[in-house]
């Protein structure tokens, strides 16, 4: 009969007390496992989002972390917006020229030129040929100067560094979810996943388009969680609420044309609307100083739409619906063509007073290292203390039983068991109780994880099952042991930790067994 069996028999002998002690340990371990799992999910979620598909965020000057949280995780409110024209500094010449073709300046210039042209035509009818020629030459010169002032004939000054730039406009909500005004590039260009090589898939429908005859500018795509929780799908419509989940709803309705597959990214929990439609909603046009412009040219939002209706123009309008001067973006997601260009570009942007350029990965890592990591460490320490308290309950349980077991121990000694043997038996009891509680707690913790796995996957995109072990604690550096403990799952450290704890708490009763006076206890 092995000593383990002898120890196990003693545990069985004190069934209820042993059971309650093991349950106490199980609860402690369950909490540790839960905290480690949460840590794992958070870490994995952060890691999944550490390859965002873009490497720079350009936004209004202010808090770098807030800009990152806003843009990457759709959390908190945007600090401020940046001019749309600044976004155009990241796009190539052709796209920029097309965008700038619908500006209030352009319309003013066109009106001025038309007036001048008319005057010259009248003049040429009455004047001499040379004078008319001079007048025409002066007119063309004036037009060219005007065009130069419009600054149309160039690409964005950062476009040469930019692989792509995707604008996002934040501020509206669909229920509790953020509404993101953007361009179709969000899903056409952007990739996600650890290698940034996974395209966003649609579980239903398609990506929204800039304009369609059917829905005009008012198409939307919703994330998987949004579709599930708001119970919407392709063909449904929604009207974003302005500025707050409880805010007033806009009158315009967006038609859902696509539902994203779960990606495990924050995009699961956002609704994406066509940026052109976003601008056309009430209160989304930036107020401008009309002093510079004629009242005629400072048209209200949407006035440029051919039929004056936002929803369903018969054909795509020649001009964009809201003049550039009245547009703002919350941020621009930029992927630079190289890291060096990215640094150069960031320097240049940060020296300006218009915007700032942040590297989201750096901000996320800082957030994790400086805030999330320590919080999780604190939680881990608290739960570890719970385990220690459970360990003390093992000590109390075994130690209290020792007075009843002196005789039993003396009999073992009389049968030839050495002091070391009886001490070992008591320590094994402690270890068995601890491990039994530990295994039950581990199973309980993982059962909880399994029960919550659907929710976790939906909310974070991290898939876990019963046997999923928490990942190594890469971000926790316990007393400089980070590289050591970071190699394996912390759950595997539970085994030696529990054995060590059991030996420590079992030592006192084991010592009591060791010191048992055999002759005296045999007579008791």
């Amino acid at each position: 009969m092995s000593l383990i069996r002898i120890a196990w028999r003693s545990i069985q002998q004190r069934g209820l007390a042993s059971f309650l002690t093991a349950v106490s340990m199980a609860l402690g371990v369950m909490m540790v496992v839960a905290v480690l799992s949460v840590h794992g999910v958070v870490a994995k979620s952060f890691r999944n989002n550490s390859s965002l598909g873009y490497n720079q965020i350009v936004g209004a000057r202010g808090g770098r972390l807030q800009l990152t949280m806003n843009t990457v995780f759709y959390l908190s409110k945007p600090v401020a917006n940046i001019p749309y024209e600044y976004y155009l500094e990241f796009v190539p010449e052709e796209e920029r020229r097309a965008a700038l073709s619908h500006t209030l300046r352009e319309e003013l210039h066109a009106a001025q030129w038309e007036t001048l042209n008319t005057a010259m035509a009248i003049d040429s009818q009455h004047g001499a040929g040379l004078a008319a020629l001079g007048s025409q030459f002066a007119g063309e010169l004036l037009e060219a100067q005007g065009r130069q002032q419009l600054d149309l004939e160039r690409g964005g000054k950062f476009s040469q560094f930019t692989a792509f730039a995707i604008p996002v406009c934040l501020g509206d909500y669909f229920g509790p979810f953020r509404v993101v005004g953007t361009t179709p590039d969000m899903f056409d260009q952007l990739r996600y996943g650890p290698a940034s090589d996974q395209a966003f898939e649609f579980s239903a429908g398609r990506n929204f388009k800039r304009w369609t005859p059917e829905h005009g500018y008012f198409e939307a795509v919703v994330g998987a969680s949004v579709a599930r929780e708001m119970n919407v799908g392709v063909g449904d419509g929604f009207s974003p609420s302005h500025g707050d989940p409880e805010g007033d709803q806009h009158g315009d309705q967006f038609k859902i044309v696509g539902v994203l597959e779960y990606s495990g990214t924050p995009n699961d929990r956002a609704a994406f609307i066509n940026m052109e439609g976003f601008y056309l909603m009430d209160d989304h046009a930036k107020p401008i100083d009309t002093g510079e412009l004629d009242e005629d040219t400072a048209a209200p939002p949407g006035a440029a739409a051919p039929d004056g209706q936002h929803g369903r123009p018969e054909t795509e309008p020649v001009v964009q619906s809201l003049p550039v001067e009245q547009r703002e973006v919350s941020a621009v997601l930029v992927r630079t063509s190289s890291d060096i260009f990215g640094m150069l570009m960031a320097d240049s942007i940060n020296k300006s007073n218009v915007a700032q350029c942040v590297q989201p990965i750096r901000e996320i890592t800082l957030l994790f290292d400086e805030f999330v990591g320590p919080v999780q460490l604190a939680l881990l320490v608290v739960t570890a203390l719970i385990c220690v308290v459970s360990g003390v309950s093992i000590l109390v349980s075994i130690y209290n039983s020792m007075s009843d077991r002196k005789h039993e121990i003396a009999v073992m000694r009389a049968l030839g068991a050495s002091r070391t043997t009886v001490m070992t038996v008591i320590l094994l009891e402690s270890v068995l109780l601890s491990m039994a509680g530990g295994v039950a707690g581990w199973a309980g913790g993982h059962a909880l994880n399994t029960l919550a796995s659907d929710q976790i996957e939906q909310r974070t995109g991290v898939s876990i099952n019963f046997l999923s072990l928490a990942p190594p604690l890469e971000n926790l550096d316990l007393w400089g042991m980070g590289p050591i403990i970071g190699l394996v799952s912390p759950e595997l450290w539970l085994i030696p930790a529990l054995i060590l704890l059991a030996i420590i708490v079992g030592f006192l009763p084991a010592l009591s067994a060791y010191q048992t006076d055999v002759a005296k206890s045999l007579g008791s």
Partner: protein
Amino acid sequence: MLHLEGVKKSYLQANGEFLRILDVPKFEVATGEQMVLVGRSGCGKTTLLHIIAGISRADAGTIRIDQVEVNKLSEAGRDRYRAIKLGYVFQTFNLLPAFSALENVLLGMTFARGKRDTNRARQLLDRVGLSARAGHKPSAMSVGEQQRVAVARALANRPRLLLADEPTANVDPANQQKIIDLIRDTCREEDIALVLVTHAREVADQFDRVDRLEDVNRVVSTPAQEVS
């Protein structure tokens, strides 16, 4: 095979003085010999058995079993010697309640050699008539059955000497003789020396050698003396 000479034992009293309770000039038992020790309560019978078994250490004297001087062994050595060379049957059986009859028999083997001989344990239980009760715990057994298990346990390691401390004191008369017969027959068959302590005259009368502790222990024959 058992030789005691000049064995003395005293205990420290609450007043700080020592009380001598054992003073055995000479005591011997031959190999395979079966003898009885009788004496009134408190005359040091159990203490003498404890000293022979190495459970207690004598203050002075020689205790030799098969040429091994027990009193010179370390505590761990005495534990090992006790496990291998001795069998001990207690008055109150001292079966461990958490273990079945078979496991109680195996327990002694575990401490002696670290490995169990289940066949030997079953044979012994069969011999004491309890093969059908091997899986039962002491609480489910009668007093007589428990003492028979205790005998089987004491014999498990094929000891050279069996010490039996009033083995029939708690057993009903019907089982008393069965227990004595069992112990004596087994010791005879396995050539085990037997030192049996008893108060029962009917038990003592069955043995060829009956020693009165008063004759063995000088302390008992004279008034209790304090030792400086």
